[in-house]
Structure formats: structure tokens, C-alpha cells
């Protein structure tokens, strides 16, 4: 190779080093090892960097061709997380826990309902509805806010709701909400579920529900502190991903002052139920 060519090669190699510090971010400002040999004949050298920095993005396309992909679609779902028959010492009941929603990747609007119908009393023991708006704030978490309305037990009351819904590390599903009632009472509810795969279709699911109240609300037999806990185990068989019958056992108990009151009234604050139901979505 001629002298000129060698000179050219040297200068481009030199420019390459300059090119480094201009092109890269902070990384290469640090320790450049000595004797860092680049095999020039193999490596395409960098041309001298141009005066203007080239932007990563060009101006948006201007055409009336429509969109190449539709990555912001709306989806609608209905989920029956629990629909079950419950049998316990004092009687029998039917419980439901439904959620329907419309969603994009970041925003969701939910309509939810849960409650229990007493077969013996032929009346609702509890029934509530919720309307919530959710927004994604982290890879695995949405923050949700809205209203909840309790139809039973009476008297009816409304709440403002603020909570988070998501997947905690180690795969715990978490639904935690703070409620402010129309009387100014504050309460908190935590629900968490975990799936243990016995086989590809047979899944054991422990579930925890915990309720806390900030105030005494005697007309609802609620007293400040932990008011109630539910620990359950459900075993479901996924006939399909969308339809899974299950059986289970549920232990629920009033806590704290609420429990004391029940006991002093001669009752048992805890109830154990056997449950059988179906989990489904579409």
C-alpha cells in the first residue's frame, strides 16, 4: 500500500477514536485499556464525524395511507373470579365476585360487583357494586380510583375508592383499596391470590382477604382496627383457560372488637365453609 494510503488509514483510525467519544454516551470516557489493539484491516473504520449530529428520528410521515399496525386496540372482558355455593354450620349461601372492563394498554374502566345471597334467609347478606378507572403506573401495577356502593347490608352507603391492582414479586396477585365512606369513615381492604400449579390444569389457589377500619362504625358492627380476615383454599380444574370448576374451603373471621362483641353476644366470630363453584372469563 502506498504512503498516501497508509496515511489515510492512520488518520481514519485516529478519527475513529475521536468518533468514539463523540458517538457514545458516558461509557467510554472511563477507563480505556492500554494496548487496546484494533485490527484495522478487518474493522471498517469510522469516517470523520459529520458536522451536524444526525438525529435518531425523522419527521413523521405525511401520507393518507392509514396506519400500518393498530397497536392501541380496545378490548372488553368479563371475568367471574368466583361464583360459588357455600355451605357452613349456620346455613348455605351463593357468592359472586364479577368484574367486567374495557381496556387499552394504559387505561381501563371497570364495573365490578360482589356479594353473597343467603339461601336460608332468601335475601342478600352483602352486595356491592364498584365503578373504577385504572391507569398503568408501573410494569406490573395499575392505580385505580372510583366509587363503591353497598346495597346490603343496609343502610346503603357510598364510598370513594383509591387503590392498586397488580402483580407483586413472587407472583402474588394483589388488589388493595382504601375507602372513604359518605359518612367520613375510612377503611382498607386487601385481597391477594396465588396460583400453585399441581399440573398444567389442576391449580391450587390460596386466597387472603383482610379488612381494616380506621373508625368505629357501630351500625355496621365495625370497630376500629382489623375487622375481618378470610383465608381460603380453592382447587380448580381448567377445562379450558376460560372455564374452571373448583372446590374449596374458606375460613373467615371477624377480628378485634367486632369479634369480641360477637362472642359476648354468644356467637362464633369465625365461620368455616365448604365451597364449590366455577371460575370463568370471556
Amino acid at each position, binding site marked *: 500500500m502506498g504512503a498516501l494510503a497508509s496515511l489515510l488509514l492512520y488518520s*481514519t483510525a485516529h478519527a*475513529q477514536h475521536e*468518533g*468514539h467519544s463523540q*458517538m*457514545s*454516551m*458516558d*461509557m*467510554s*470516557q*472511563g*477507563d480505556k*485499556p492500554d494496548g*487496546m489493539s*484494533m*485490527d484495522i484491516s*478487518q*474493522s*471498517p*473504520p*469510522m*469516517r470523520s*464525524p*459529520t458536522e451536524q449530529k*444526525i*438525529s*435518531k*428520528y*425523522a*419527521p*413523521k*410521515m405525511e*401520507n393518507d*395511507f*392509514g*396506519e*400500518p*399496525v*393498530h*397497536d*392501541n386496540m380496545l*378490548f372488553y*372482558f368479563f371475568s367471574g373470579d368466583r361464583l360459588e355455593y357455600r355451605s357452613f354450620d349456620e346455613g348455605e349461601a351463593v357468592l359472586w365476585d364479577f368484574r367486567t372492563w374495557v381496556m387499552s*394498554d394504559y387505561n381501563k374502566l371497570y364495573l365490578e360487583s360482589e356479594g353473597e345471597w343467603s339461601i336460608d334467609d332468601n335475601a342478600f347478606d352483602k352486595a356491592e357494586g364498584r365503578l373504577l378507572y385504572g391507569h*398503568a*403506573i*408501573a*410494569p*406490573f401495577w395499575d392505580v385505580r380510583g372510583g366509587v363503591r356502593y353497598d346495597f346490603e347490608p343496609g343502610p346503603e352507603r357510598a364510598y370513594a375508592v383509591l387503590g392498586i391492582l397488580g*402483580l407483586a*414479586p*413472587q*407472583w402474588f396477585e394483589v388488589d388493595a383499596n382504601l375507602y372513604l365512606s359518605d359518612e367520613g369513615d375510612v377503611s382498607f381492604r386487601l385481597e391477594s391470590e396465588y396460583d400453585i*400449579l*399441581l*399440573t*398444567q390444569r389442576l391449580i391450587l389457589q390460596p386466597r387472603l382477604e383482610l379488612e381494616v377500619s380506621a373508625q368505629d362504625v357501630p351500625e355496621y358492627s365495625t370497630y376500629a382496627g382489623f375487622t375481618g380476615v378470610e383465608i381460603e383454599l380453592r382447587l380448580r380444574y381448567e377445562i379450558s*383457560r376460560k372455564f374452571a370448576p373448583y372446590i374449596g374451603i374458606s375460613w373467615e373471621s371477624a377480628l378485634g372488637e367486632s369479634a369480641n362483641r360477637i362472642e359476648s353476644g354468644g356467637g362464633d366470630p369465625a365461620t368455616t365453609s365448604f365451597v364449590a363453584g366455577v371460575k370463568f*372469563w370471556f
Partner: protein
Amino acid sequence: MCLADRINLSHIMKNKTHLSASINRRKFIQQLGAGVFVTSLGGLLPSPSWAGSLGQSLLDLDIRRRYDLNIAYMPFLINGKKERIQATAINGTVPGPLLRLREGDDVQLNVTNSLMDTKHSSIHWHGLLVPPDMDGVPGVSFAGIKPGETFNYRFKLKQSGTYWYHSHSSFQEQTGTYGPLVIEPKEKEPFKYDRDYTVVLSDWTSDGPDAAFRNMTMSDGYYNYQQRTIGDFFNDAGERGLKKTVADRLAWGKMRMSPVDLAGITGADYTYLMNGQAPDENWTAIFNPGETIRLRFIAAGTMSIFDVRIPGLDMQVVMVDGKAVKPVDVHEFRISAAETYDVLVTPNKDQPFTIFAESLDRSGYARGTLSPQVGLSAAVPQLRPRPVRKLDDMGMGMMDDKIFGGGKMDHAAMKNMSGDSMAGMKGSPATTSTAIPAPVGPEPFKPEDKVNTAMIIMNPQDRIAEPGIGLGEDGWKVLTYADLINDSGQPYTPMVDREMTINITANMERSIFSFDGLKYSQQPGPYNFRHNERLRLWLVNHTMMEHPIHLHGMWMQIENGQPHDKIPYKHTILVKPGEKISALITPIEKGDWAFHCHLLYHMDAGMFQVVSVS
């Protein structure tokens, strides 16, 4: 040597109801041309004449300059039974007609959209360098082909090799709008062969693409019936010890990711097809012992990555993505959605051989037979066990507790990063023959959007010489990108003008797939490429899945350790989890070009961008 010379047609036809036993070859071919083909199962399938259940050698087909393609609904049969979902077939067959063209010709490809209820249809000529308005991407190249209309593609062929074509509209590619495209070269190829078959690998969904997309949005593991169970936990504990097993589960649980989430749609829904035939339908290609057969493998699956081998035969890879490479002898190769591999095989024995295309997650396979006679089949291998991803492979050793699950940047780790990339420059063991060392390396990634990116890989690895998950442990040679040595000439200058990094990102739990943490609809604009510059593009995969990245309108040349004139051409690059890979690109044509993951449901969920060359 013609297929018909070897086979007594009346022998094949004697069980069939629609053709008389005394049919002659001319009538037979005419019937084939009509688009239906009677199979050995006695049923009618929408199978093209060049494939059928009995492969027709490509050498028998005419080379043409004009094709008329009509996209319309057709019932689709698998094993003789009609599927619930209709196919969006081209000229009545799945795959569509084989287009045999010649390099240098001006071709006319007229495409009619007869899917009257669609917004549009389209055909993109995958891997072909055509003017931007002929590239067939609705929204980028044109508005799409409206129902009832015909679009006349006109372009000059500037290349030769094995390619394919498919719809770029909605999910039509999933329901059968794809076909093979072969361009015969002006100059003869350096290798000789006696027969020439096209092998299109694809996937067919029984749920249908809209339902499948919805199912995956609701539930990330919807189609995964190979999850880790409590039984796996006890097995692992038995093999590796309780402490290690618990640590492993905790490490993955911290990230809320699964090491067995290998494929978005699996054999639980998919039937894998070879030339449109299900495994039991046994697509067959005839040979005479001692002949050399060219098999042009085309992966037309929308979500599938296949591992291909022919038990009893080795293959010689001679072309990749339509470009010649120095022949490489392998027993197995991985072919991802949109790639093509041309191999030569020389079966010396007078016996059938199974062509086995196993899906990456081992949930199913496509299958055919190379046979000296009609009606024979060889043993079909068992599916291999489901592989499990390892954190070490992705540069996330369990010793290092800096595993990021929330998209946060750790400044201590960033300091480590500069040291690591310097190490890469010297040539770490993974890059044994780094003939073109990476001068700079990918830029560190700081996502703006906290929701879209579930994980950031702090130390992306050079994984080019690795065969890939589930491969390399069987005791036979598997092809890697490091084995590809270009034999197609190098017209571009050995200079690099600038480097650019594109990060492959996702939140699989939310079914959001993106580049640089931004879905297409969130991107500030197209990527900016300068006409005729020489660009080094870094791709860094911050996800747990392989993604085949495809760039329209220009070639990418992977820097795989070869000198500049020997780096291989790819139009589609399969990037492994945690991998960093660089390609040199010279944008030779101004215009807007699509750049996207070729897993259809990822593309539609946001892993799509446009490259603007000006």
C-alpha cells in the same frame, strides 16, 4: 428429470373419486393448475399444485414475468376436516402459488383483494429490493388494496434466490395469505442439484387470529401448557438441591417472568404445516437415491420458530435469506419466522427420510417425507423435552442480585457496563473471531415509559455463536449465524459512518411489545437513515423471547466475526434474549420502509417502526 417420468400416475390415483385411472400427465397438470389437488387421503384440500401432498419439482414450473393473484376466503381442511376459521387463500390455495421469476426481468404482479369485508389487503415481497411504493405495506408504502380492487405491482428484479410473499394487512398472514417466490439467477449458481423443492413451514390457528390475540392480551401464558408445576419444583430440588431450586424460583419470581414462556402461541392451538399439510398428511418429495436435492426452506409461520433436521441425513446450507454463503454442513438449523435457508441433501439410501421441523418450545412439529417412492414414510422423532431459559445465558447470573424488574437504572451497574463493553472489544471468549471488533457498542438504554419495559438487560451478551435455546446438546452440528460466510459479493464500502442502537423491549404480562420502550403509536417519528450512508445498527434484546427483526428495502449484514467482505446478508435477524448484535446497513433506496418484529402478534402489539431514508 421429470416427476412424471418416475411415477405411474394411475397407481396414485386409483383410490380417488374425481379423476379416472387412465389420466395422462397433461390433464393431471391442468387439474393441478386449477388449484385443487387430490391427496393420498382421498380428500380435497386447497393445496397448490407445486406442493400438494406430492411435491412437484420447481424445475418443472415455468419461469414467468406476470402473475395474477386473487386473495379470497376458502375453507381450510386439516386431515380432511374443515376448520372453523376460513383461510384467506391466494388463488385458492394455502400456501399461495409458487412465483418463479428471473433476475433482471421487469415483472407484473397483479393482486386482487376479494376479501370483501376487510379494510384492505396487501402483498409484501419479503426480502425483495423494490421501489418504496411497491413494497406493499399499508400505511407506509400505500393505502392497501381495498376490497374488490386490484393493485398492479411493477418492478425490476435486481437479485436472485429464495424469497416469499405475504399479506401485510391485519392478521391475513396467519390465515394463509403467503407463498413462495423464487428468482432464478442470471448466472448459474456454483452448486449442482437434480431436484428442487420448496418447503414452506407455517402455523395454523384453530382459535383464529382475533381470538388468539385477545386471549394473549388477557392472559400471558394462555397457550402455554408446559408451565413449571410443583412436580417440576420437586424434580429440580432432587437434581440440584433444595437451596438452588428455591433460589432459582425466587430469582424468576422477583422478575415476575417465566423461564418456560417460550412461545406466544403453541402447539396447544397451532397445527404446524409443511407446504400447507399437517404432519399426518405427510407432504412428500420424491427422489432417486444418489440424487442431490435442493430444499428451499421458507418459514412463513407468524409466531413460530422451527428447528429443522432430517434424521439420517446431513444438510449443506448454501443460501440464507436468498444470498449465497460458503457451504456449511450441519445436521440441524433453526429457522425463524421470515427467514429462508436453501440446503442440499444427497440421500444415498433407497429409503424414506422424515423432514422434521420442531417448534422451538417443543410443543409440536411440522413434518414431511423425502422418499424414493410414493406412500412411504420414515419414523418421526419424538419431540425433545421443553427447554428452560437460564439467567446466565442472558448475562444475568444469579450471583448478581442486580436483576431489574421495574425498569430502574442502577448507577453502580452502569459503571460496570463500560468495563464490560471494553472487555467485549478485546474479544471475550464468546466472540472468538471478532474480526470486526465493535468500536463502540450499544448505547445504554433509559426508557421514558415505565410501563412498557418490564426489564432492562444491563449486560447484553454476544451470543452469535450459540445455537440457541434447546439446541446444541444432542451431539450434532447446529447452524449458527457465526457459521455464515458470505459468498455473494460485497458492494458496500468498508467504512462505518455512524452507529445507532435500537432496543427490543416488552412487557409480556401486559402484552406490550415495543422498540426503545415505545409502541409504534408512541414513537416520535420514523428512524432517520441517510441515503447511502453506512450504518452500524445495534440490536439489544431486553426481553425473554427471541424476536426475528426484519427491515424492508435494504440488506442488513451481520457482523459475525468475518472480515467485511464475508459478513452475511440477512433481511431478518433472529435476536436471542439478552443478546446484542450488530449489522452494517447501507440504505440504497430513499423512501419509507417498515422495520418490525416478524412475530405477527408482537408487531401488531407495537413492535413496529418505520425507517425513513432520505
